[in-house]
């Protein structure tokens, strides 16, 4: 049997008549296809076009104070990336869309990034319910979705292969890594005051286990309903044997909470340990917060410049516009969300690294980008990662990092302990890499 070479076959079969027929058929097929429901008219991004990063930002709603700082940090990181040549020779364009800190709008925004703005990736979400509400849309649109949320939702395996959290640690490791120091330095008998919704429940569940593993115990759990505006009636429930009061209140009620806590305890108080989430974007020297003097806080990123802060920290502070006390250089009353917003900076540089490692050129390369992300194992402390070194677990799409414990002293927060990476380790419960792209 004689076999013709394909190229020869192709050349020989093309005549002007057949070419016209073919073009006509192709045009017809194209017309039919474009009329088919849901036909996606994507066009490949050209190499000269910017890399579009959809920025799902909480400009309004309960997350607005965080969103404001997330946007400043994101723009600062994008500027630095562009000043140094962009990603794979292409400029980065941040495409912001306000999600109203609402999961419904969040999902719509993610769809908008994928199908209207033709973004390469989406990025920047903080509030957990918005992340979880938006994740299905990201998976369906096959849009890599990088969140800066610190929720355990990504690492739990409850989302999908397109969702990553490389720039900030999750609440489970944060809480778990606090327990050894708390039990050894503050006390083993703990009473927990926390908001009665998912964020508070994560604290309740993970810290209860972690402190028990240290030989301590939780004497009382005091959940506060989210609608509560006065906390006086809850304080009598704190057992007198309490050695450590663990609090993690968020929202506008935190100032009232601290003030009423001071009125309840007076000078005879237990040790107090809280999460800085309570006071993100709030001046530690605000009237009513005097009672926190001498208490301790978890911080992911020290709000106040420390004596041993690195040169990377100095560059980062200058770039995002915060001074040595973590407030805006333009307005000292505008206090940053230091322990969260660094995640935007680090995430953008991680996206850059993964795009460069995968040779990312267009949305057709999203699969390669996902695999490049999953191949990351270590992230060194650097200008791009000023918070510190991290380990990245590609199976659960989550990074692991160091945490800080700071003491309120003289109207500032000073780091008294930094955890090791290992303090936050836990057994992974998922493997996203088994899911199809």
């Amino acid at each position, binding site marked *: 049997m004689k076999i013709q070479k394909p190229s020869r076959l192709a050349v020989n079969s093309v005549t002007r008549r057949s070419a016209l027929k073919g073009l006509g058929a192709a045009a017809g097929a194209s017309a039919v296809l474009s*009329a088919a429901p*849901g036909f996606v008219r994507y066009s490949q991004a050209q190499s000269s076009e910017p890399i579009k990063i959809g920025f799902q930002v909480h400009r309004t709603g309960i997350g607005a104070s965080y969103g404001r700082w997330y946007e400043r940090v994101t723009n600062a990181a994008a500027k630095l990336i562009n000043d140094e040549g962009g990603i794979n020779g292409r400029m980065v364009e941040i495409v912001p869309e*306000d999600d109203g800190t609402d999961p419904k709008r969040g999902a719509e925004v993610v*769809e908008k990034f994928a199908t209207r703005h033709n973004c390469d990736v989406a990025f920047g979400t903080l509030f957990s319910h918005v992340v979880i509400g938006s*994740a*299905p*849309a990201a998976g369906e649109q096959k849009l890599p979705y990088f969140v800066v949320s610190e929720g355990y939702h990504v690492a739990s395996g409850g989302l999908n292969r397109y969702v990553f959290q490389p720039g900030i640690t999750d609440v489970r490791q944060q809480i778990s890594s606090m327990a050894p120091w708390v039990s050894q330095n503050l006390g083993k008998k703990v009473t927990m005051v926390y908001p009665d*919704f998912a964020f508070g429940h994560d604290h309740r569940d993970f810290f209860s286990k972690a402190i028990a593993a240290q030989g301590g115990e939780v004497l009382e759990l005091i959940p506060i309903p989210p609608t509560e505006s006065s906390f006086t009636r809850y304080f009598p429930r704190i057992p007198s044997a309490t050695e450590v009061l663990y609090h993690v209140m968020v929202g506008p009620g935190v100032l009232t909470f601290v003030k009423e806590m001071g009125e309840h305890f007076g000078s005879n108080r237990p040790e107090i340990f809280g999460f800085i989430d309570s006071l993100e974007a709030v001046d530690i020297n605000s009237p009513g917060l005097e009672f926190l003097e001498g208490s301790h806080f978890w911080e992911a990123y020290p709000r106040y410049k420390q004596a041993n802060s690195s040169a990377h920290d100095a560059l980062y502070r200058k770039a995002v516009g915060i001074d040595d006390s973590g407030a805006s250089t333009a307005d000292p009353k505008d206090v940053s969300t230091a322990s969260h917003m660094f995640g935007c900076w680090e995430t953008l540089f991680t996206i850059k690294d993964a795009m460069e490692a995968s040779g990312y050129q267009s949305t057709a390369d999203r699969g390669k980008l996902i695999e490049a992300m999953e191949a990351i194992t270590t992230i060194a402390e650097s200008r791009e990662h000023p918070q510190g070194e991290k380990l990245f677990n590609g199976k659960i799409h989550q990074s692991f990092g160091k945490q800080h414990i700071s003491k309120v002293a003289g109207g500032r927060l000073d780091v008294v302990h930094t955890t090791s990476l290992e303090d936050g380790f836990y057994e992974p419960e998922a493997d996203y890499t088994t899911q199809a792209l």
Partner: protein
Amino acid sequence: MSNSVSPRALVLHLGVLVILFALQFVLPPYHNGIAARIMVLAIYAIGYNIAFGYTGLLSLGHAMFFSAGMYGAGMSARLLEFAAPSAFFVGVICAILASCLFGLLALRTAGVAFMIVTLMFSQAAYLVILYFNNVTRGDEGFVIERTLRQIGGLDLADPVVRYNAAFVLLAVCLIGSLYLVSSSTGRVMIAIRENEERTRMLGNNIFAYKLLALTASGTVAGIGGAAYALLFGYTGAAFAEIQYSILPLLWTLVGGAGTTLGPILGTAAMFYLVDIASEFTSAYLFFVGLALVLMILLLPKGVLGTVREKFVRWLP
């Protein structure tokens, strides 16, 4: 229940449905996906309109019916691994039960008291979702696995399937509401809205009719909630918050309360108003407020309500 849907009203509604069906062939991808979301939310507004627009029951608690459908479907899928059709059925049953039981209690009040009671019950439902966070996942909510979002081998996450599933549900609810409000029952509902005492004097059992209207309204709202959970894969307490009781009121007011097509128009208009305005300013709610003020000043009966008043008297 005798029906008297006029032929031209039926033709109009079928024409609107044909247009909605055809839109999927011409809309760009983004608007195609958004249209599916608008249709699901419009189902919610259609349900709200049955109580508010046609019966005069101003509820500030319909989010509990929407979320009853949403959580009925979502939790049966998540916890019991029900397939989409079964989960949807559970969601609808939950909405029927919630609206009927709620009606038995709340309809003992009227006017402003009814409004406040609906608000309080809805807030209580929201807090129940938070309280039983171990099973509901509280405010964070949960994702419904894509493998469970299938009907007869069709993937509800597929844009084409999702559009048409939303379209079919919207069509059923729209035509159902048309037949309901055109029936003798519907006329009594309208009579209650216009003059409750006179309607009572004519020998009608007002409580029974209101209960029927509220149950029908809550059920349709629940259909919207169940559809949202299964088509978009997320269930969360945010949908039980007060703002999701206010939204269908706004959509209905803008489109035209007491018009069958008004909720669809209002939902689409408000959606695009937010979508477009938010691209230019974070103060997009200002434009929403401005639009409502202008609407009240210029079109107090909503777009289609005004059209009916001035041009098309037969509009149902």
